[in-house]
């Protein structure tokens, strides 16, 4: 037995030494009857596995009175189920009902603002606190975390974006069934206990991530000003008054509307046996009923018809961000933007770095990227940190000059080849970690419709011509399509 195993290993080494397997060869797809999509990759580098579940619902899908709910719900889904996270759900449940009633009364009273009854507010707040304290006697704090953790689970987390919501964990490979058991339970029996204290946590998250950080505050204001109609402009975390109006009832509705197996994409990457893993997932998730198919966002951003300028006065040195509306991911022009992004902003040979950081030394760094999502038309963005004594205006003029150059001078073959070489390397590199690969598989499957975007992107980019780049630059880098945001230092020079 031992000799056979060794012989097999030697064979594998020599084969893989000649030719590393491509992603196309490694990914196994499986769609369950209820619509849940599985993407599996065997990697036997270490006895570990990463499991990511992506739901095709993000803050872009929120209605105006729900802003912030996708993210708050993500927090709430760590709180347990009817059996996990509780000592006695039957006794806990009536208290949860009372908490929700009181919470809603408090929100209604607070919504009266100046006309709110102070005594009533105080009474309701005290009642809510007392009920929460009573209910907490039944709570087993963060039991999901505890269960994963004592079994060696790491990186147990979740994140919400405009486009989607993802739940992730890495486990020792022999413990994948724990993931199936917990996640299947969470999807079917979640209980959103401790709602109002968690809502306070999210308010602190908002203060930390946006209110008290000037760069993020500019970013949030800039995005909101870039989209008048499309919900991409709304901050995922919600404005403070949005969060104040969220209730457990709204979170539950959102959960039941969107968290169905047909809206879920699962990637499991690591030291697994593919066939056994499919059976495992079928066993735990196969009986779930599919939910409604998600309707796409119907709002369309009207064509911008003039420059928008957004100023933030803050206790901070100046920064600048510039955006242009562009089409969604995996459209013909988007591949051209990929090339433009790399030519202008990727690495030390990029045009912005060479011109603005090294040659003219106007800025200490310049970044190029797209945001705030990619399922729907988004923005091409340039951000820069001006270097004193140079001003925001000088940096802005320099960015615009480089964008103009793209319209008039064709890029060189060498520039294009460098991009393809970089992508060849990235294709190899991103197969190197379980978590990274699971992230990319779920992300691209969700936003482009197929994870194969990862294997096809280089071929599409190879077809982009210098003339395409000139055309796209001329079409999109216009004054009318531009928004500029900047920080002015409080009390600083004009």
């Amino acid at each position, binding site marked *: 037995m*031992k000799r056979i195993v060794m012989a097999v290993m030697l064979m594998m*080494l020599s084969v*893989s*030494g000649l030719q*590393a397997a491509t992603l196309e060869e490694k990914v196994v797809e499986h769609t369950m009857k209820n619509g849940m999509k599985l993407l599996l990759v065997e990697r036997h*580098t*270490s006895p*570990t596995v990463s499991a990511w579940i992506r739901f095709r619902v993000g803050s872009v899908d929120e209605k105006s009175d729900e802003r912030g709910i996708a993210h708050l719900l993500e927090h709430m889904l760590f709180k347990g189920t009817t059996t*996990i996270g509780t000592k006695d759900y039957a006794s806990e449940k009536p208290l949860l009902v009372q908490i929700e009633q009181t919470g809603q009364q408090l929100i209604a009273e607070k919504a009266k603002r100046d006309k709110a009854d102070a005594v009533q507010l105080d009474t309701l707040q005290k009642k809510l606190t007392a009920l929460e304290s009573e209910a907490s006697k039944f709570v087993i*704090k*963060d039991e999901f*975390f*505890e*269960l994963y*953790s*004592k*079994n*060696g689970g*790491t990186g*147990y987390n979740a994140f919400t974006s405009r486009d989607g919501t993802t739940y992730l964990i*890495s486990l*020792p*490979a*022999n413990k994948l*069934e*724990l993931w199936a*058991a917990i996640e*299947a339970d969470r999807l079917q029996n979640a209980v959103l206990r401790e709602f*109002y*204290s968690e809502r*306070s*946590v*999210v*308010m*602190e998250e908002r203060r*930390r991530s946006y209110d*008290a*950080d*000037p*760069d993020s505050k500019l970013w949030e204001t800039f995005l909101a000003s870039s989209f008048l109609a499309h919900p991409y402009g709304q901050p995922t975390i919600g404005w403070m008054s949005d969060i104040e109006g969220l209730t457990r009832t709204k979170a539950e509705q959102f959960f039941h509307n969107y968290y169905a197996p047909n809206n879920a994409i699962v990637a499991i990457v690591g030291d697994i*046996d593919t*066939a*056994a893993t499919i059976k495992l997932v079928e*066993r735990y998730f196969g009986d779930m009923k599919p939910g409604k198919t998600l309707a796409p966002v119907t709002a369309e951003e009207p064509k911008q018809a003039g420059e928008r300028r957004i100023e933030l006065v803050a*206790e*901070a040195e100046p920064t600048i961000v510039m955006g242009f509306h562009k089409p969604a991911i995996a459209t013909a022009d988007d591949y051209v933007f990929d090339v433009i992004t790399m030519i202008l902003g990727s690495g*030390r*040979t990029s045009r912005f770095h060479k011109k603005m950081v*090294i040659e003219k030394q106007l800025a*200490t760094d310049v970044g190029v990227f797209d945001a705030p999502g990619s399922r729907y038309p988004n923005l091409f963005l340039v951000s820069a*940190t001006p*270097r*004193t*004594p140079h001003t925001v205006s000088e940096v802005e003029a320099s960015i615009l000059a480089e964008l103009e150059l793209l319209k008039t001078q064709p890029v060189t073959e060498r520039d294009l080849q460098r991009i393809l*070489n*970089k992508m060849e390397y990235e294709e*190899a590199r991103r*197969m*190197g*970690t379980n978590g990274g690969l699971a992230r990319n598989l779920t992300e691209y499957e969700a936003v482009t419709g197929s994870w194969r975007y990862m294997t096809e992107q280089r071929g599409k980019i190879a077809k982009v011509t210098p003339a395409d780049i000139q055309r796209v630059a001329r079409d999109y880098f216009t004054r009318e399509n531009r928004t500029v945001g900047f920080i002015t230092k409080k009390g600083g020079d004009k």
Partner: protein
Amino acid sequence: MRFLILILCFLLAGLAPVSAAEKALANPRNITFPPLAYQIPKAERIMLECGMPVYLLRDSELPIINISALVRVGTVYDPAGRSGLAGMVGSVMRSGGAGGLSPEKMDDELEFMASSVESSIGSDMGTVSLTTLTKNFSRTLKIFSDVLLRPDFSAARIEIARKQSIEGLRRQNDDPKEIAGREIGKAIYAGHPLGVVPSYASVSAIQRQELLDFHGRFFRTDNIILAVSGDFNREVLLKELNATFGPARKVEALRLPEIPQPARNVTAEVIYAKKDVNQTVIRMGHPGLSKDDPELYAVRVLDYILGGSFTSRLTTEIRTNQGLAYNVGSHFDIGRRFTGSFVAETETKAESTVKAIKLMSGIIAGMTKEPVSDSELNAAREYIVNSFMFGFANPASIVTQRARLEYYGYAADYLERYRDNIAKVSAADVLNAARKYLHPDAFKMVLVGNAEKFDAPVASLGSVRELDLKLDIPK
């Protein structure tokens, strides 16, 4: 071998038709698992002809090779009045050209190959790294070795690096979290090189010759450990490495300046910086322990229970129960060459600042009063033991880990015994470690926010030193 057979049986069972018994779904609370014996992958240690140790681990899953060079150097060696020198050496080694290759040509050549060579110097270690597709290895290795040993320190690139650091200094008070992080470090290590940060004066004073001298003093083949992983042929690689780094040379013995250990005792102080924001950044702490202290394993367990996990005492009370913060926790940064530190941190709305601080101090002090519960102890030990394998999930992390252990002088069997040492920690050990290494009465406490909106005066927390955030940096 028996483990292997068991695992095979499990896999085979998975392939069989679904039976009634298999359909039963496990309860997450008492689920059982097939066994998994885990052994830390070994890296080979080889000595190059020049006397440089190399850790090797071949893995051909991806057509990529990674190298890290660990160099015994650090910002702690910045001369008086030249804080920022080591950091600038670390950055300009790469950005300023090397081996006669100009900065522009190096950037162009590396990026055309999609190869990467980067360099940096931290407080007690310098790192130069290489990542490349296998097919471009030889050329990238040449550039890597030039950056490591023969940087040209272009005068123009030094000026750019200097201006960039000055711009960084100009912006150092923009984000309240950055202010608090810097100030707690300065307070804990006051009087020691670890507590010194670059200033406009020190960065402005640095001369090119000082960069050359600093580099020459530390970056020599007898002061470097290499870690190599990925898709290489062992014999070819060793030949190339020996050709690159050459034979042993007779040179004057390496003499590193002596840096004393920081003081372990500090006195309590409240450091306040005013920022007009709606949330206060809070950091509190003091010196901690080093890897050679016998309580190391008890402190690892203590750390998890107190503030190192989502179910830690600090997170459960401040975040989950009270909703006072999104981020709250504490951490013993284990000292490798120098005594480490303990820092507890949170951010809370201005109106709950003092409340949060008092709760946190009380929770930390609680660790020194009573033993932790059995369930806390078990949860911490199980997590640390069972998640251990994630430190070795890819070949690059395995070889770098081994090289780091040698660099810092860990016992040869440190990793092999780590899980057993954690499993042996008792509640009494944790209590003893807490009493020895946690001193809430001696906390340096940094608060950045708007005291006018606090729930109680800052002075109620102790004697206050207010920081002036105004910077004197000319335009």
